[in-house]
């Protein structure tokens, strides 16, 4: 039971006084999140109505920044790219790790399954930046692994300047991490599959459901919660991630791999337009917020814990 330092019949002020130790204990957490999360969030919304150089010059623009955002050609191109990348990532995060998880889950040799699981988790612990830099080498037009591989199999004509060619830059960055079977979504799916009780599998086997049928009629419905969770997490993460583009292509060549987050980053830290940058941040936040609410309202159930 919860401990109460004050008596039930104490008036509120007395309860508060008697509980003062408790407030002291939670003070660091409350103070930190107030200063470093809530204040910046409020400030972002407030500053999005200003032309602001990050220091003293701050001029009220009303909805000027938002109007500018909706006619900003860079942002329009970026939004299209974002859509493409979201679709691409949804496929890669939903399909491939599911294959990996199903294979590991159905392996009869349990120690081997454990080893495969361990190996497939390794990409999570290797720093993202290291993975990016390795892939930069893989895509290197002269001695990169990909073009070398194409040469070995006699397809050197297909070799490309993967990151430096506007036709390929966007998808080359999105492609990083192939074959995408391991990592975080893999673990989520595996945990979901392991939660399915043995009885259900036994019953389905008696009913003759194996292989593909078992997947669609038994497993998929029972890990639907995990699927929904990953759809949501993937979309939210992709909207916010631009680090890969910043490091590998700087959004180029031209605008060929520009995404909204990266545009925001440049607007703020390259052009010192912190007000307009904040406005782009607010728009992305609104997008994430709406998606989260829609998800909670219409697609919840099954993923209770999510």
């Amino acid at each position, binding site marked *: 039971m919860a401990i109460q330092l004050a008596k039930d019949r104490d008036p509120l002020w007395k309860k508060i006084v008697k509980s003062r130790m408790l407030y002291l204990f939670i003070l660091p*957490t409350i103070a*930190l999140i107030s200063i470093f999360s809530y204040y910046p969030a409020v400030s*972002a919304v407030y500053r999005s109505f200003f032309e602001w150089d990050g220091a003293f010059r701050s001029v009220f623009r009303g909805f000027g920044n938002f109007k500018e955002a909706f006619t900003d050609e860079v942002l329009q191109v970026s939004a299209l790219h974002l859509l493409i990348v979201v679709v691409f990532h949804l496929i890669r995060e939903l399909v491939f790790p599911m*294959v990996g998880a199903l294979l590991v889950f159905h392996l009869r040799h349990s120690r081997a399954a454990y080893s495969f699981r361990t190996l497939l*988790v390794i990409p*999570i612990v290797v720093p*993202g930046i290291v993975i990016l830099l390795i892939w930069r080498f893989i895509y290197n037009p002269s001695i990169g692994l990909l073009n070398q591989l194409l040469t070995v199999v006699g397809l050197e004509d297909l070799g490309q300047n993967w990151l430096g060619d506007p036709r390929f830059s966007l998808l080359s960055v999105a492609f990083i991490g192939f074959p995408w079977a391991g990592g975080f979504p893999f673990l989520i799916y595996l945990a979901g599959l392991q939660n399915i009780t043995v009885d259900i599998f036994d019953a389905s086997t008696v009913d003759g459901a194996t*292989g593909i049928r078992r997947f669609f009629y038994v497993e998929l419905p029972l890990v639907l919660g995990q699927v929904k969770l990953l759809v949501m997490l993937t979309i939210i993460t992709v909207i916010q991630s631009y680090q890969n583009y910043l490091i590998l292509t700087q959004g180029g060549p031209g605008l060929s791999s520009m995404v909204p987050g990266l545009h*925001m980053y440049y607007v703020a830290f390259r052009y010192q337009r912190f007000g307009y940058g904040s406005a782009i941040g607010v728009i992305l936040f609104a997008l994430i917020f709406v998606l989260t609410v829609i998800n909670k309202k219409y697609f919840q159930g099954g993923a209770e*814990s999510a």
Partner: protein
Amino acid sequence: MKLTPAQKASEVGKWAALVTLTFLTLYPFIFMIMSSVKSNAQIYTRFWGVAAPLHWDNYAVAWRMISPFVFNSVFITLVSVLTAVFFASLTAYVLARFQFPGREFFYYYIIAIVMIPGILTLIPQYILIKNMGMRDTRWALFFPYVSYGQVFSVFILRTFFAGIADDLIDAARIDGSGHLRIYFTIILPLSKPIIGTVALMRVITIWNDFIWPLVVMSQKKNFTITVGLAYLTSEYKVEYGQAFAGYVIASLPLLVLFLLTMKTFVRGITSGALKA
């Protein structure tokens, strides 16, 4: 149990598929390790294999270049994770075990942070740090890292603390232990695994963070390992082998931690995703 021929074939198929997937997943890392002991000439001539002589000296050179970054990362990761977990566990303890005015409010005040994405706060947070005069100091990383750790940690720990049996705590109270003492002598020791899980998740996030240290640190001596690696490979025409050796060094701490704490690790990742 005897397998039918069809079952056997399906087992073989699964093995083949898994070996292929695992190999492709890990090949970039295998390639990184092989290339880390080669000179540029060896990379050009013996691309796929490893050629003698092995250039272990690549590691010495790489270490000389990145050791200050490694030190910065180790320091900031340790200090901010320990602080974050300490504050979070104290808060979780209070919220889980005590009844007081405002308890619900404070709980939701903390949890509601999950609705605030990093992309919204990046710019004002940078300005805040700048105005506080913390740019290019360790504080610029410390405070946000401690702060960001709170939501997830409080959430997970509060659930766990609430489940600790009352008898244990009642017994300690009868012995006359104060609340802080109960926290240190009963709650913390009982919660080591879950606290380890929470801490581990924070270690991964902080060690791998790139954008934030990039934004607040402009002097090379303050770079964390991620920013340092990106900087080195863009500024200098380094030997590829040395660069790869640097990548290996940067990956080692978490890899070792992972191998030592595999169970905690996997549980942390899945619980984090399903509960937060």
